């Protein structure tokens, strides 16, 4: 297979401007042109080299601001590199901001034509493939309605469909799996696989290490514009995950063991990790650290911030003694992107009922940096939780919801009493 993309020693520099850079002719006339010049520059990409063969898929991972989007821009020739060279064969297609080019007042049909021609297809080809494009997007019934009447999902589907039907030799993708529902996503994946088979080279930028590991043939890890690792996806993904963890470890300052208010010992890098910019000062389980299955549990986390920080992610997990997770919740995933941090404060998680089987558990509490890049403080296997129930954790399952057996025939409906009401036996 031939090489579709060859990138050698790529570098892209950005200028940083004076904050008071005049933005209007008026201002420029008043303040003079001196501030128009950049005051400094920085390299968004430096010394990046890789190769993608025809029919191969490269996954690019890295933190926010690592240069992933810049790389896509440079590959798409919408930004010009300052160093190095790129060789690419064939037409480039892109799945970036899907649907942004659509005009709401035009019908789906009109938008498909404009977008596909802009994407590089001659008019006659668009006419030929039109039905295919619409069928793929499953929008046959709506194609002559103005796009402003579409839902955002419909718009994305149409945009995706146009983009994958322009027959690019190189496809640039930015987090594409967020298109539509699950069935459409698997359709997209199939289509991508087809394109690969036909020799299309794909560059996928993703936050999701697992996705890169599953889909890509090679992976590239970018950090502050330079390549940290490049090679087998499993290896690169592993290194990336390791680094994430060790970043937390490196940031964990050495300090003597501390005692929690319940008398458990906190030892750094054993059951406590994190940079300690925010410290978990106490964790209380209410009403008690021994509850009955199905009862309410409140986890109160006291924290203290040592540095002015904007926000953080609070995470609480409940795990069994052997570490197997039973519950994993955090503020970000539950739709609370911003938490106003106080110097000292308390965050409470209320579980209206906790239907776990009886046994010993731990409540693990963590406070993380806003993009999960490292932990501020994480207490692991420190706070024990005991649950009483008739079902014990010796069975394979972890759940113990209210339940009862019934025969479908109503005459024998009282063979077994509801389990919950049996619990008095154990008293």
């Amino acid at each position, binding site marked *: 297979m031939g090489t579709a993309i060859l990138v050698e020693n790529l570098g892209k520099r950005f200028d940083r401007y004076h904050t008071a850079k005049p933005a209007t002719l008026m201002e420029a006339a008043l303040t003079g042109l001196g501030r128009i010049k950049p005051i400094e520059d920085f390299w968004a990409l430096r010394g990046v080299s890789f190769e993608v063969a025809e029919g191969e898929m490269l996954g690019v991972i890295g933190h926010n601001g690592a240069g992933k989007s810049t790389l896509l*821009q440079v590959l798409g020739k919408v930004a*010009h590199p300052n160093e190095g060279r790129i060789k690419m064969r064939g037409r480039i297609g*892109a799945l970036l901001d899907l649907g942004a080019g659509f005009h709401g007042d035009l019908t789906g049909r009109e938008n498909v*034509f404009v977008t596909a021609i*802009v994407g590089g297809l001659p008019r006659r080809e668009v006419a030929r493939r039109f039905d295919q494009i619409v069928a793929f997007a499953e929008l046959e019934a709506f194609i002559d309605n103005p796009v402003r009447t579409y839902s955002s999902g419909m718009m994305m589907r149409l945009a995706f469909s146009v983009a994958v039907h322009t027959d690019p030799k190189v496809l640039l993708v930015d987090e594409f799996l967020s298109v539509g529902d699950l069935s459409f996503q698997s359709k997209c994946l199939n289509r991508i696989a087809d394109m690969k088979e036909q020799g299309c080279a794909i560059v996928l930028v993703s936050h999701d290490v697992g996705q890169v590991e599953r889909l890509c043939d090679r992976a590239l890890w970018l950090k502050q514009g330079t390549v940290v690792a490049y090679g087998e996806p499993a290896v690169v993904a592993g290194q990336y995950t390791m680094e994430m963890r060790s970043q937390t470890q490196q940031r964990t300052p050495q300090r003597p063991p501390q005692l929690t208010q319940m008398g458990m010992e906190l030892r750094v890098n054993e059951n406590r990790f994190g940079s300690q910019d925010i410290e978990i000062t106490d964790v209380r389980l209410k009403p008690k650290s021994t509850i009955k299955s199905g009862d309410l549990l409140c986890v109160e986390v006291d924290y203290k911030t040592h540095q002015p920080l904007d926000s953080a992610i609070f995470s609480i997990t409940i795990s069994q003694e052997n570490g197997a997770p039973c519950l994993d919740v955090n503020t970000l995933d539950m739709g609370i992107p911003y938490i106003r941090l106080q110097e000292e404060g308390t965050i409470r998680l209320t579980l209206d009922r906790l239907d776990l089987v009886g046994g010993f558990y731990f409540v693990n509490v963590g406070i993380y940096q806003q993009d999960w890049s490292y932990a501020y403080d994480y207490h692991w296997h420190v706070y024990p939780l005991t649950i009483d129930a008739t079902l014990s954790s010796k069975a394979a399952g972890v759940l113990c919801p209210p339940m009862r057996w019934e025969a479908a025939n109503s005459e024998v409906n009282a063979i077994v009493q509801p389990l919950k009401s049996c619990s008095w036996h154990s008293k």
Partner: protein
Amino acid sequence: MILKRTSNLSRQKFPTQNLGYLYDLLRSLVDRDMKLMYKRSALGIAWTLISPLLQLLVFVFVFQVVIKIDIPQYSSYVFTGLLVWNWFQNSLFQATGIIISSRPLIRQPGFPTVILPVVVVTTGLIHFVLALPVLFVFLLIDGVKFTPILLALPLLQLIQFAVTVTFSYFLASLNVTFRDTQHTLGVLLQFLFYLTPIFYELGNIPPRYWFIYGLNPMVHIVTCYRQILMWGTQPDWLALLIISGITLLFLPIGYRLFKYQSLRFVEEI
């Protein structure tokens, strides 16, 4: 410094850049603009005619009824000027904001950004051509006799096209750095409107102002249109030659500047 860096850029060839494809692209973008313009208006494309006709009405009222200006075939005279000027003004005004408003297109890999002002000016040209029959009706009513020199009309349109595109490249580029260019341009164009013989005669300009008044290319272009459409005389070939020469000189510079600025706009973080 800008030019040194852009010369680098202009070397990069887009794979899809052949003439047939460019024609398709131009056609679909012009088509889109026309549709967008009239999609939600009841009168649709008729607006192309209504607005210059209303302007004409105002000028005829003011300068034939209120203040008398003695120009023969006044409505033909003003309507010619208005059509030519409106094409110029509307195109410039729209093209100035084109980089900012076409972000998704510019981000599309391989999209030839430099086509954007051409799309705007072509859309204007179509409106101009659609209004021509009405102009001819005016000319006929005013008793104008058409001569073969009328065949120079497409050439004149081509020159105006090139001049407008050249201006558009520079203005759109400037608008990336200074976002108020569009507002400033509105005022400037109004100035220029009065500094172009649209509703008055060229002969009214005192000769001592000519050296500066004549710098406005639209003065010559409007006059040439009248020469071939109304008066049946040879256009001012010398003026047209000079304008074409200057345009040919600045068009490639504007082209490169535009390309450079549109890339810079997308790169901005």
